[in-house]
């Protein structure tokens, strides 16, 4: 390096300096990672420590008793499962088809750009706004009343934008050469999409659907005003009437439990908290399993 006017000592010093700053940066990254992991562990740990003592078979399988100071939370779990099931039925019809449109039919014109921006905004809209909208339209205007159906519609409305975006992303992640090859064989666009593209996008689409619906069902605000009953001691009856009646559910139960501090024993609130967390965790776990199974089969 004599040509550049640098001697060996000089170079060595520069190298050491670069190594030091590189190490320093890794340490900084590690600290940031530890902070975020620490927060998660702190939250989960607290809920586990305080919630586990409340959980037993009776707690999960019985209705509240003695003015909610005893008994379990089964009606709320059942309500959340019902809400989830309906949301999973309604959301894909609009969300997945909408996502396919966004990915393959909308193009890049002015209108689709506006639509895309609107959908991204909707996907990030606070859930209380969906709650109020559901109250105004489904509950009052459509006269569905505070009911399971109104809850389904509200939660679906909330999940649809997210599902559209994840579906679009799942389709765009499939190599465009699949579609090109199919179209070059004379398949129609829909045939090409359905046969050569969508099968590879299905795991991503399902994951997005389940995560969106799971998230929506864990939220209290959208069902507060549309489907909510903050507790119920009813026996399990599933018939046509169930659709037009409000349902008890975990997040609302939890919110009210806190608000009316003192009525419900703290132990039961923490137990409910843990149950809700496990409920969402199980849903996410299901989505992760679906995805990883499918991904193992995927070869590109």
């Amino acid at each position, binding site marked *: 390096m004599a040509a550049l006017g640098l001697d060996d000592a000089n170079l060595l010093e520069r190298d050491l300096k670069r190594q030091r700053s590189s190490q320093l940066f890794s340490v900084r990254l590690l600290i940031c990672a530890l902070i975020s992991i620490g927060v998660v562990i702190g939250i989960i740990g607290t809920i586990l420590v305080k919630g586990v003592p409340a959980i037993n078979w009776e707690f999960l399988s019985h209705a509240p008793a003695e003015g909610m100071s005893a008994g379990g939370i089964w009606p709320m779990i059942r309500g959340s499962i019902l809400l989830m099931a309906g949301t999973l039925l309604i959301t894909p019809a609009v969300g997945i088809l909408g996502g396919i449109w966004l990915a393959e039919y909308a*193009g*890049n014109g002015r209108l689709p750009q506006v639509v895309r921006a609107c959908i991204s905004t909707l996907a990030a809209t606070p859930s209380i706004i969906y709650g109020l909208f559901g109250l105004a339209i489904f509950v009052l205007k459509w006269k569905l009343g505070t009911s399971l159906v109104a809850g389904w519609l509200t939660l679906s409305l909330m999940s649809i934008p997210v599902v559209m975006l994840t579906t679009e992303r799942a389709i765009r992640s499939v*190599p465009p*050469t*699949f579609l*090109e*090859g*199919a*179209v*070059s*064989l*004379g*398949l*129609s666009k829909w*045939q090409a999409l359905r*046969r*050569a593209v969508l*099968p*590879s996008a299905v795991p991503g689409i399902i994951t997005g659907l389940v995560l969106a619906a799971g998230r929506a069902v864990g939220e209290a605000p959208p069902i507060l005003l549309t489907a909510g009953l903050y507790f119920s001691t009813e026996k399990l009856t599933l018939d046509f009437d169930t659709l037009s009646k409000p349902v008890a559910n975990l997040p609302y139960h939890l919110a009210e439990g806190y608000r009316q501090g003192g009525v419900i024993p703290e132990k039961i609130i923490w137990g409910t908290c843990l149950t809700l967390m496990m409920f969402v965790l199980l849903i996410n776990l299901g989505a992760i399993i679906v995805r990883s199974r499918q991904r193992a089969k*995927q*070869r*590109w």
Partner: protein
Amino acid sequence: MVGTLVRPALSASNVDLFYGNNQVLKSVNFEAPEREVTALIGPSGCGKSSFLRCFNRMNDRISGARVSGNITVAGQNPYDPKIDLMALRRDVGMLFQKPNPFPMTIFENVALAPRLHYGLKGSQLEGLVESCLKKAALWDEVKDDMRRKNGLELSGGQQQRLCLARMLAVQPKVILMDEPCSALDPISSEKIEDLILELGQETTILIVTHNLQQAHRVSKHCAFFMLGVLIERGETEKMFSDPQNPLTADYITGRFG
């Protein structure tokens, strides 16, 4: 320049192609004879692939693509507003630069299009799949597990032959090939070249290639493009031994490219 062919399978007159404001092809006049292999050669970015894709309108997906002039292929004008694009693409098959089998079994890869297009099934479909895999020289390698094995599990060269079989199953009259060997190793390339020579006996093939030796080996006719202009076309043998245009001569002798 060669004179007008008696029955050109493909032709272009005064074809301009734009991508937005960028003119990719400049008034190209071109003809390719029936049942022969014609090669399109020229340096990168000269417009030869874009020209190839005019014949089955695979440029359509590029936003801002505009074509003017007259194109005919297999007796049709691809840019006729009344054209049945699906029918056109059944007549004009295409092999891509990078092998792109579908993520399904080998059998399904070949069977998909004839089943959808012609409603074939059962032994008729099986027979067609077998004959196409044989024509693509892939049958012996896959006949035992073609119903279990995914097309994407094959090697690159096998994948390209699978794509060829898949295309032959539609019974195209004209075959377009866009640098079909550029992603393959020399041995796989040789196999594809052999197939091109064989298929060229009965089908019209238009092939884009970067590889001059390959153009020399497989094609009867040749067209040289540069910067969107067709510089020279004629019989391959003649063009390689006695190019008329100095630009062609420079390119063929490796002075640039």
